[in-house]
């Protein structure tokens, strides 16, 4: 069941990723609670969709679930999952393993942790390239050199013989990007790819990501908490709160006309902080909800300035308010 309106996309753009009603549950099937509560999203080739939210919103879990990498103790279910135009029978690890690394790849927040500390960069490339692309050893090494060159790593042969700890975080993040893109996947999930880096390096890495995307044409799902970063990178922004997408819009629309009270509050906060003249920062009162004990109805209602009795009745569904702009709030338009 697709949403009422498709986000504005260039005509003929192929779907890189489509998932419907994704659910990630923590704990036993009965008695457990959902951390991701029915997320549907589509990423087209050449396009970047940003999944924005605060900690605990489920944005990272959504990204991990698409690769079958959710932590132990969780289970994943979805109405439908399509990667690179191919339907998957299920979200099971076995079904996803075939796609992981080849059709869908991931860049993690902390490259120092995400890479194996006891293998050289070259060995890690060799493993990935031989497994995913079945290349011979010399071919894989030559390919690794090219890939490193493509992400702006100078002196690739030397770098291949170094260990992760011998490199800076910025260099490692470039290398991780090269590794993730080695099989030219249809989709790249980038989970806070620059959060551990200085802003100067963030700018470099994001420019590099954009450049590689232009060359390879993969769809990018950019998971981030940083609205500033997203503004410059994404074509579409999906805002998550308490495990659900509460607003989805083309980037320009989201920033110029945010519809959901949560998005509005978040943007106001970001802009207040960025404004040296504001005397009092508009903070969102309270704290993000605990997913184990969610109130009935809209999860944001307890912190929402516009909350009305009807907000606590039923969980609001996404509905279109403009072309490609959907929002899950019963108060919008009232």
């Amino acid at each position, binding site marked *: 069941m697709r949403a009422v309106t498709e986000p504005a996309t260039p005509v003929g753009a192929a779907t890189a990723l489509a998932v419907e009603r994704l659910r990630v549950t923590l704990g036993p099937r009965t008695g457990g609670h959902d951390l991701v509560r029915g997320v549907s999203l589509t990423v087209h080739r050449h396009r970047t969709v940003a999944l924005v939210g605060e900690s605990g919103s489920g944005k990272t879990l959504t990204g991990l679930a698409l690769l079958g990498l959710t932590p132990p103790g969780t289970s994943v279910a979805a109405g439908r999952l399509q990667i690179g135009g191919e339907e998957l029978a299920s979200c099971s690890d076995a079904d996803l393993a075939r796609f992981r690394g080849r059709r869908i790849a991931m860049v993690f927040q902390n490259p120092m942790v995400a890479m194996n500390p006891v293998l050289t960069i070259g060995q890690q490339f060799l493993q990935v390239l031989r497994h995913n692309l079945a290349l011979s050893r010399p071919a894989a090494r030559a390919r690794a050199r090219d890939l490193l060159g493509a992400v702006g790593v100078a002196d690739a042969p030397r770098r291949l013989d170094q260990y992760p700890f011998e490199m800076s975080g910025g260099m490692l993040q470039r290398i991780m990007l090269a590794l993730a893109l080695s099989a030219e996947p249809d989709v790249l999930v980038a989970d806070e790819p620059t959060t551990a880096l200085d802003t100067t390096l963030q700018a470099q890495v994001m420019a590099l990501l954009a450049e590689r995307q232009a060359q390879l044409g993969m769809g990018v799902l950019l998971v981030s*908490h940083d609205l500033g970063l997203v503004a410059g990178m994404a074509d579409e922004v999906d805002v998550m709160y308490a495990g659900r997408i509460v607003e989805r819009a083309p980037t320009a629309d989201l920033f110029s006309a945010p519809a959901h009270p949560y998005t509005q509050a978040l943007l106001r906060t970001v802009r207040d902080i960025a404004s040296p003249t504001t005397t009092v920062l508009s903070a969102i009162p309270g704290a993000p909800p605990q997913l184990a004990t969610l109130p009935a109805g809209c999860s944001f209602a307890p912190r929402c300035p516009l909350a009305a009795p009807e907000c606590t009745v039923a969980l609001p569904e996404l509905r279109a308010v403009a072309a490609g702009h959907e929002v899950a709030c019963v108060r919008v338009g009232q």
Partner: protein
Amino acid sequence: MTASPVTAAPVAVRATLPRVRAGVRRLSWRELVGGGGLVAFVLAAVLAGVVSPWSPDALAIGSRLQGPSTAHLLGTDQLGRDLLSRILYGLRPSLESGFAAIALAAVVGVLLGLPSGYFGSVIDSIVTRILDLLVAWPAVFLALAVVLLLGTGELQVIIAIGLAEVPVFSRLVRSIALLAARSDHVVAAKAAGASAPRIMVRHVLPFVVAPLVVQFAIAAPQALVAEASLNYLGLGTHPPAPSLGAMVSEGQAFLAYAAGPIVFPIAVIVVLVVCLTLLADGLQDRLDPHRGAERRRP
């Protein structure tokens, strides 16, 4: 030590995956079996006077080196003494000196390791040298040296085993203190003017306790075996007082006539060691940082 002036990386909103809120986790089978076994042994030793069918020293020359029977459940030794009773009584010095030795090692280990890790530099170097000195000797020679200097007896056994275990404890404490000394909460305490002893006791020691408990359980079986070995070598308790090691030692001469006097004490040592090892394993799992220590509530 690197210069890293605090990674000021924009580690903003780290996407923390919600964790299972673990209350008091149920006991694992390792903890149940190991802990239960240990409790049973301790009870048996404590209540030896009540549960023993015979006095451990009651001689019965007529029934020497007998196999198990209804009168003597595990048989008798070369002097006709009831093996079960001797084992029950023999558990006492084993458990006592084993635990006392580890307690000694833990205390000395904390006293050495805490300042060593916290201050580093000169103090660390001195402590490390002392430990190297202890480690350089094979444990048996260390024990012999103690006995040479202080004579034989239970206290000497405790000191000998304790000394041999000090380096392990000290290094463990040092490594944790080293990490804790660099943590922000210690810097905050320094900034508030806390003295070094205060910081060590209030802000470092609490983090050492849990790993110490695990190490205690890991070292206990080693200490038991060491205690038995020293008694086997005749460096511990004086006859006729029973001890598991001494019983093995005495039984050895009569192995050709009866296996009981040597097999049963060894079996008891083995079961005891297995229980302690299981308990240590279980405790280690419980304190595994991946499972609970880092839990954070949203």
